[in-house]
């Protein structure tokens, strides 16, 4: 299956030790395998606590998962020091996927139930509030209509499709003007359970509450990240060779059927 090609990607996995609670590693495995199966060279750089900024500069694609509160605090302190470097890369259009805690951290702030405000990295125009332990967490299978990548990206996705996953979050996220939602809720709660949005897109960065993890059952989305990363790196349009997605589709269909959502 693996053949030589001229392409190579470096995936930066931010805080794999601390930010990886909900099977988030699945996203990395999927990105890695879908590159390998196409003969695209791939290296995963683990950017753990106190990582070097040079390493961040080498990456073509970023990923960061969710975590327990305690771990998230440790990460947030470390990342605050590297905020500018990360912001520069994101503004420059490096593609990235940020799940749950990571998604919240990239926002302006996180307001705890006791009204304490924890400042975020302030890279995405959004904020999160937690209504407290007496208000239910938003938990369950979820489906959204993914509206594709907008004009920020060199690669356009001209059709919308359904993404499925599992969400489990106490925080409610509200989007500002400078970000677009990742998609429209078909079933489930999404960002806050009120406005019908889920996730956020800013430049080529994607934030979402989807666990599941998100990429295995949504291979088009995984491929989109790979494609954008390659196009950004090599500066020309790139078509990925197709892969057999039949188990992926069956797994997605299981959830879609349960939620009564058409694919």
């Amino acid at each position, binding site marked *: 299956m693996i053949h030589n090609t001229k392409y190579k990607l470096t995936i930066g996995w931010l805080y794999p030790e601390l930010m*990886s609670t*909900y*099977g988030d590693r699945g996203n990395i*495995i*999927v990105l890695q395998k879908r590159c390998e199966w196409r003969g695209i060279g791939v290296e995963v750089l683990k950017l753990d606590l106190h990582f070097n900024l040079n390493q961040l500069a080498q990456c073509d694609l970023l990923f960061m998962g969710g975590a327990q*509160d305690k771990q998230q605090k440790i990460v947030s302190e470390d990342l605050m020091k590297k905020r500018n470097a990360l912001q520069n890369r994101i503004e420059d259009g490096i593609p990235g996927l940020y799940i749950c805690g990571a998604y919240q951290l990239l926002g302006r702030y996180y307001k705890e139930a006791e009204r304490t405000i924890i400042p975020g990295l302030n890279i995405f125009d959004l904020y999160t509030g937690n209504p407290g332990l007496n208000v239910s967490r938003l*938990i369950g299978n979820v489906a959204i209509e993914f509206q594709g990548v907008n004009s920020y990206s060199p690669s356009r996705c001209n059709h919308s499709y359904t993404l499925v996953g599992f969400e489990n979050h106490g925080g409610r996220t509200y989007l500002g003007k400078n970000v677009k939602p990742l998609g429209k809720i078909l079933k489930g709660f999404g960002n806050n359970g009120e406005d019908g949005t889920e996730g956020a897109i800013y430049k080529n960065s994607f934030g979402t509450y989807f*666990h599941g993890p998100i990429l295995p059952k949504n291979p088009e989305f995984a491929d989109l990240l790979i494609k954008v990363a390659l196009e950004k790196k090599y500066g020309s349009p790139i078509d990925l060779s197709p892969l057999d997605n039949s*188990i992926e589709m069956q*797994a997605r269909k299981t959830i879609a059927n349960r939620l009564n959502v058409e694919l």
Partner: protein
Amino acid sequence: MNTFLIFLGKSVAILSKIFNLGSGSTWPGHIALSLNPNFIKQIVNQNNFKIILIAGTNGKTTTGKLIQTILEKNNKKVFQNESGANLLNGIASSLLLRSSILGKIDYNFAIFEIDENTLPLILNEINNPDFIILLNLFRDQLDRYGEVNTIAKKWADAIRHLLPKTTLILNADDPQITYLGLHLKGVNVKYFGINPKNTTEKIQHASDSTYCPNCGHKLIYDIVYFSHLGSWHCNNCRFTHPQKTFTSSPIYPLSGTYNEYNTNAATLLARQIGIDDKKIYPALQNFKPAFGRQEVLNINGRNVQIFLSKNPTSFNESLKTIANLNANNLLLVLNDRIPDGRDVSWIWDVDFEDFSSQFKNITVAGDRTFDLGLRLKYAEFKNFQTKKNLAEATNVALEKTLKNDTLYILPTYSAMLEVRKILTGKNIL
């Protein structure tokens, strides 16, 4: 009042049995508690049996059964709540079904396995149990339990007010569990672990507690047994693995490192009760596993052995154990019902990659057949077959298993009950 509740509860249990309604192990207690919230407290205070509580993510049922076997072999009268009926209603049912109409329970020991979230609640009802065993804390059903740290915190608050009457039996190799004994005053604390081996394993991906529970620094591990269990210490605050730890039952009746922990916990407890080692070991030798926990069935000349595998750590340990047993034939069953956890993300935290060419025939089934199939695909397994219908999958897996060979079944909780029913034709709960 309680006389009426006991009568009512027993009638409900009989009716549920006659009509095969299931849930006979929780309904009676549920009704009793909704009419008298103090039911557990009152029945316990009215009786003299000693109480053993067992909590932890993995190993509750097996450890409980090990203790029961040892105690019964030593002529004690013992009762236990039904495996899985480990919330307040299950405990209340268990008390109710053993008591006379006047609330008298004629037993020496009660062993209760307790759900992680229920431990604080049961300690409100049973203020000073004789023994509490805390086995481990791993990530499990995050949609239901939340984070490991949250549970550890709840447990710490719950055991803070224990009286000296209670003996706490803690896993020395799990830093979060050891930490629970650190600041307790006046309570008798004993530790168990396993014997250090020469092999040093890498920290597995699904490790949760590799940071010091005392000061938050990264822990140093000299040895890792599995997940975050091992010989550890903190260089920052000097919090260390307890020195005096019981690690050596001479017989381990079940395979797998995880069962060494369960056996050592049970043996340590039996010693605390005052049972002589010489009387503990014969009991271990005759131990029969609890249903679905390495239980062996014989189906048409083939051995079938069920290894309940319900979270990343238990799945990893099951895979490791059956690989050591040279398993050829596997049936993996993934359900996502309430007892399994609705979120199946955790399968991506299982280290399937280490076993991609280990097994000859693999059949995948359950509510989330294709999620598990997908996981195997990305771990580069080539020889697996997906079959959504569990009865069909079981047949396929049995057909692929040669006579005198063993089919190993790794199911989640509800899948275990289901597959057992298919194999034996009987409903257990």
